[in-house]
């Protein structure tokens, strides 16, 4: 199971970071680079490809080939400078820095032939910001007052405040969608709109064929204003069984796939027909303590309102050993509500270290002692037992929780595994109906998402995402300062304070960051493939003419019919 995500920012930031580092260097231009077809494995069939409703990584990967944003984040990966033109040719800031003017490429066309206009940009913002649409990062657009069309090719974003990610939110967060095709769609039924299954974008690939429950075929748009994609087609096929995935990669039935299983990774990495790219971790998992009673925010949790107990449980787990035994080189112990790949993350923050003797002493001091002849600690006749709700759909978390169960058992801590399906898990987490939940998140490049996950305001908001009800105003203050800082050292300093605070409070046991390995068939030259979003530059990937196999020879004719 892919962990929860909001990947657009990480995708865009990283998409240019490794341009120079791609295998084969820059692509040589020439006819021999045009042609070929690749087959990419996805875990699940996308529900929709409509950008504001895309939420799973498999949806992101496909949708990002069909739609474009106004600008791409630049080579330096900075969010406030260095952008490259995409749908917008150029842009400028108004004097008060509260407005950005984007001038669209006059050649840009929708795949139905209609020109891309400023009214499309205005419509896109309106759609993403509409609370009834359900864009998952809508909170990030809070400072955009409005978008206006100065003329047919000039769109202006108006802000109510200056902030470091201002340009990113306008230029790169929202893929532009066609107003003329979506304006009359009822917004509440957009999740099942026909457009989501037959999208028309402005990207270098267009939808060729969607075979339900099987595959999605994208074909190169030969009339694209920035030049056609070099590959003729990209087919995304659903492969849900990891063993079948490995076998099909080995035999060349598949060309590209993400691998998270260490054993499969070891086998495939040494295969002569495959090359591997290790992606930095942006997904992390943690045992989230509910500091309040399940479903009753007014009452403290009988166990986990006590930070001492939370710290003791953290100390009781040898997370290094657990993570190494499960993930080998593909995983590391998580350091907090962040991953090491985030620019503002600080892995030097002192963690709560494994110390079984210390954990025992701390539990004893809290009154949780091990009575003679008993296997579980007790306090005033009450056993130290709790349930950890775990989504059965996540094989990583299911495997890890059994190891944690055994580790706790050895420390006299009674833990039961409450395995529930993904739907039930998210429903109960949102309702805060749990004592401990084995949760997972996808981190953005920005740490702004922490506001909705860990601040006092989001804990008090019944619809907020601070599901464990963690509250510490000191953390909030440092996070706000980090996000408002104009320079990186200052932001880093406040972020460090914020992270140190939350790690010391132990609202969760930070268990692991997991990296994925993306396997590519060796004949593919992955120009612009990037660590966190290998799909960023698919339109520039190519297969040298002398290395093409049978399926590369089919050409566009069949794909187009």
């Amino acid at each position: 199971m892919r962990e929860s995500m909001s990947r657009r920012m990480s995708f865009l930031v990283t998409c240019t970071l490794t341009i120079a580092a791609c295998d084969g260097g820059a692509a040589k231009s020439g006819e021999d680079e045009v042609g070929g077809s690749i087959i990419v494995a996805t875990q699940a069939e996308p529900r929709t490809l409509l950008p504001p409703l895309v939420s799973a990584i498999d949806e992101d990967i496909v949708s990002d080939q069909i739609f474009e944003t106004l600008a791409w984040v630049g080579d330096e990966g900075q969010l406030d400078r260095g952008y490259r033109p995409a749908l917008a040719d150029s842009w400028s800031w108004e004097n008060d820095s509260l407005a950005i003017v984007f001038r669209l490429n006059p050649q840009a066309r929708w795949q139905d032939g209609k020109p891309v206009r400023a009214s499309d940009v205005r419509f896109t913002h309106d759609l993403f910001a509409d609370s009834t649409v359900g864009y998952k990062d809508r909170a990030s657009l809070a400072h955009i007052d409005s978008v206006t069309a100065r003329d047919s090719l000039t769109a202006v974003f108006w802000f109510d405040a200056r902030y470091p990610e201002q340009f990113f939110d306008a230029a790169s967060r929202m893929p532009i969608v066609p107003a003329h095709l979506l304006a009359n769609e009822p917004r509440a039924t957009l999740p099942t709109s026909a457009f989501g299954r037959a999208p028309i974008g402005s990207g270098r690939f267009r939808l060729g064929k969607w075979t339900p429950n099987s595959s999605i075929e994208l074909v190169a748009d030969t009339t694209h204003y920035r030049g056609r994609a070099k590959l003729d087609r990209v087919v995304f096929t659903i492969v849900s069984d990891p063993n079948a995935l490995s076998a099909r990669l080995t035999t060349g039935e598949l060309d590209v796939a993400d691998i998270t299983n260490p054993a499969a990774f070891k086998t495939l990495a040494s295969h002569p027909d495959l090359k591997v790219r290790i992606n930095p971790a942006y997904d992390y998992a943690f045992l989230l303590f509910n500091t309040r009673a399940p479903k009753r925010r007014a009452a403290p949790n009988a166990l986990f309102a006590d930070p001492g107990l939370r710290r003791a449980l953290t100390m009781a787990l040898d997370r290094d050993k657990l993570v190494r035994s499960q993930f080998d080189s593909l995983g590391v112990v998580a350091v907090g509500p962040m991953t090491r790949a985030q620019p503002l993350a600080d892995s030097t923050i002192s963690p709560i270290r494994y110390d079984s003797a210390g954990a025992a002493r701390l539990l004893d001091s809290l009154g949780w002692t091990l009575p003679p002849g008993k296997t579980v600690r007790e306090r005033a006749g009450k056993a130290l037992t709790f349930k950890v709700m775990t989504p059965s759909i996540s094989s990583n978390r299911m495997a890890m929780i059994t190891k944690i169960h055994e580790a706790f058992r050895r420390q006299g801590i009674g833990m039961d595994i409450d395995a529930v399906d993904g739907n039930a898990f998210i429903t109960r987490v949102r309702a805060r109906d749990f004592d401990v939940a084995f949760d997972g998140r996808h981190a953005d490049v920005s740490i702004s998402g922490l506001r909705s996950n860990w601040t006092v305001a989001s804990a008090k908001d019944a619809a907020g995402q601070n599901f464990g009800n963690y509250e510490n105003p000191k953390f909030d203050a440092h996070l706000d300062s980090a996000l408002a800082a104009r320079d990186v050292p200052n932001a880093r300093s406040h972020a460090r304070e914020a992270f140190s605070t939350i790690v010391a409070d132990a609202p969760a046991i930070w268990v692991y960051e997991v990296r994925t390995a993306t396997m590519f068939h060796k004949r593919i030259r992955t120009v612009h493939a990037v660590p966190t979003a290998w799909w960023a530059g698919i339109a520039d990937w190519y297969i040298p003419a002398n290395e093409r196999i049978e399926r590369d020879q089919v050409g566009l004719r069949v794909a187009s019919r």
Partner: protein
Amino acid sequence: MIFIAASVSFLLVHLAPGDPFSSTLDSAAVSESARAAWRQVYGLDRPLLEQYVRFLAQLARGNLGPSITRPGPASAVLVEALPNTLLLMGTALVLSFVGGVALGAWQASRAGTRVDRVTGTASLIIASLPEFWLGILLITVFGLRLRLLPMADATTLILYDSMSPLQQLMDRARHLVLPALTLGLLGMASIARYQRAALLDVLPLEFVRMARAKGVSDRAVLWRHALRNALVPTIVLAGLSLPTLLGGAVFVESVFSWPGLGRVAANAFEGRDYQVVIGATMIGAVLVVAGGILTDLLHAAVDPRVRVT
């Protein structure tokens, strides 16, 4: 029976935690107001009894209602996937029935020999295997090691559209082999064990001894006289195995990326696409009924004492 199945599945799927709009870990940040609006569109904000009455009214008009995860009606989602599953199940059923009967008869003719014991043990092991495990085993042997057969999908991606009709037919057949073999082998192993036991019950009977006394060859006695009488329990088993095959198809379709009903049903349940789940359950119920009818018809065909009225 189908009505009961529809009602029970309606109740169960609605009582399961979550709903179609709280379904994914990926979309946890979607606002509650958007979710509420979506629920309103599909009437999921109404009391369960009202939803049930509406569902029955729709069903009476032959309409399952809309799919919540796909554009269009739920029935279209199911109809789209059904042919692939019927093809897979049909092939597996023929394979398991024909192969199982033949193997069981062959074993019965060598009852007590070493070959019979080895074959019996092998069929017991195969019958005990989980579908997905056998599928992986076949993929490893025929797809990965020998590279004889495709390991997934119903057709060869990309190349299929450029094939001639005959090549397309062959391509479909090649893709069908491993998933059908997985389902069929499991059924075949079970049926062979039943068939062997049934024949061993029949072979000592008087009419068989009489046939032998008249000088009928062992082969003719077995295949022409004894087998027909020993087929009745196997036919019952084959008929009743239809819903079991559908259950097995869920796993087999997942392993082989086969775009069939089992996969649709599993995804629909995960995504709480209520109408598709109910529709898939109803198809299961239809298969139970169809299996019963098929059993009666075949029983009548092989047993002259039974007449279909």
